[in-house]
């Protein structure tokens, strides 16, 4: 058991009004300070290429096909089990493409492991941060919701290569 002793108030404090005036002075002083709040929905958050937003799939240069080959490495790397992939055969040279690629955005913890695991530069953390919908099902994103043209992710791709070059050896595989 802890006995808490009530603090003895001084005469000034017991008079009450001076304390009210002191408190209000803080409030009015803040009116003339620099604003640190933001009108959020109208004013967006500042995003840079370092921002690790929601993962997105990149499209190839042709703008049609995904760069993803459904190798399942992001699925295996994902610590939150947010990714589900089913592969299928394609006539393209790469032979394999995802039939289903789903990211459960409710599970995604935006850690960026998928981006690091990907051997095909197919998944990158975009600068998209907002996530709201009326149903849970709508927040399980499929390919249509995830795919982005490469240009939209180019800043992140460049940044990713810049930081990873510190430990990445020059690849000799063609």
């Amino acid at each position, binding site marked *: 058991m802890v006995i808490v002793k009530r603090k003895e108030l001084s005469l000034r404090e017991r008079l009450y009004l001076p304390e009210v005036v002191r408190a209000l002075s803080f409030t009015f002083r803040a009116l003339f300070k620099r604003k640190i709040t933001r009108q959020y929905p109208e004013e967006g958050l500042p995003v840079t290429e370092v921002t690790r937003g929601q993962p997105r799939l990149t499209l190839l240069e042709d703008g049609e096909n995904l760069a993803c*080959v*459904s*190798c*399942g*490495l992001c*699925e*295996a790397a994902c610590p939150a089990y947010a990714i589900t992939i*089913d*592969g*299928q*055969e394609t006539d393209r040279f*790469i*032979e*394999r493409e995802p039939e289903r690629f789903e990211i459960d955005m409710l599970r995604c913890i935006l850690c960026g492991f998928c981006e690091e695991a990907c*051997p*095909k530069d197919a998944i990158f953390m975009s600068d998209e941060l907002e996530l709201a919908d009326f149903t849970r099902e709508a927040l399980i994103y499929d390919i249509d919701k995830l795919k982005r043209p490469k240009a939209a992710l180019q800043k992140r791709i460049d940044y990713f290569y810049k930081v990873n070059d510190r430990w990445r*050896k020059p*690849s*000799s*595989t*063609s």
Partner: protein
Amino acid sequence: MTRIILNGREVEADPKQPLIHACHTHDSDVPMYCYHPGLTPVGSCRICQVEVKIGEMPPRVVVACRTPVTEGMIVNTEAPGAHDARRQCLEFLLKNHPLDCPICDKAGECDLQDYSFNEGQGEGRSVEPRRQLEKRKSLGDVIVLDQERCILCSRCVRFFEDVTKKPQLTVAGLGSRSTIETFMDRPLEGNYQGNLADVCPVGALTLKKFRFQARVWNLKKSFSTCGECSRGCSITVEVLRSAEVKRVRPRYNPEVNDWWMCDTGRFAFPAWNDTERLSGSATHAGASIAPKPSADPTAALDEIAAMTRVASAETIAIVASPWITVEEGALVKSIADAFGAQATFVSPPANDLKDDLLHTGDPCPNRRGLEELGFVAQTADEVATLLGGSEAGILIGERVGSLIGAERLAAVPSTSRIAVLDTELALFPAACVSIGVPTSAERTGTWVNVDGKRGRISAAKPAPTGVTALTHTLEAILARVARVGVDG
């Protein structure tokens, strides 16, 4: 047994087996690509090189798969010379091997991938482009060949030479232009082609049915027994996301199937993934429209007890499927004994798949087990006659309806009341009671194969909602009919 010194440890080795076998049995992971314990060793990949010292000779680097064990030989698998030799071999094997791991079906269980990963040799020194060969060469209905990935270990060639004894593949071409080809580009034949995908140490030979279906590390593997013939090959059932059987592979069992299995058994699994099946239980009571199945089997079980109560003992037919396990069979036998009836099982005619390797031609996996329990085998016609003359019949086990046949079942008069415990109902227009049962991928039990060897089947995936274990259902029936016996 021969005594050898392996990595400083004195161990016993089987003199009939090559040195690599002794290394593997004594926890020394010598890599291997061309060596397969079921095939003749040829020593073509040279990846199993180890250092061996015999007597007063200086130590030499030899391939472990082609070296017989001799008394007192000193083997060092991790000697610098041997290790370097293996490393250089690996570099040459990887010289033309494409970096296909992200799309390769073998990734995750690939010997080449595992060993390259262990060695950490992540960079190639070669500047020449890799071999460009055919990546999607179809070899018949089962197998597709990726010639670029092939490391020419010739395991597939030897599989046809040693196991099926009908050579169909060969290494064609010379030197770096060598490829695996069929004779005259004919498609592969036979019932054992699926094994090629298992013997291939890399992803060159893959199954068309498994191509790009799943990543192997996502598959949950459970040990089971094949139910497509009375051989009862040991298998591994691989299930994706606890829902869908994606692949069935043979499991080493020296007493039954060694390393192999036939394509009939290997590709029988799609039936397990069928979602349109009987789940839950229902009492039909002569209704023409099938009632909605209920998850609670009490009413159906009571109905079975009621319909057997009104029937006289000699007119009760107990017909099981040869797919039921010994455990379930014992319960069925007890139920039959409670009535004083004869337990029978449907015995389909032998099919024409019999060969001299594994397939017995008899499609019943548990014929011997049921016969040992005292069941009587009856043909579909005999069963139809039996059902026609009976007042109450209980049909038990998966496939029992399809084994008897839709026409024979439709001809059963409405005076005989039939209870069905099967996975499908469409075949039984006259059924009074239906209870869904799990398939052999969803049950646990024992089958006895044609030679009396026991094979365990285990539940690879959960049964659909409303389907309880067949042993539970049979126990509930037994409890009810035993009570009937006491009362009556």
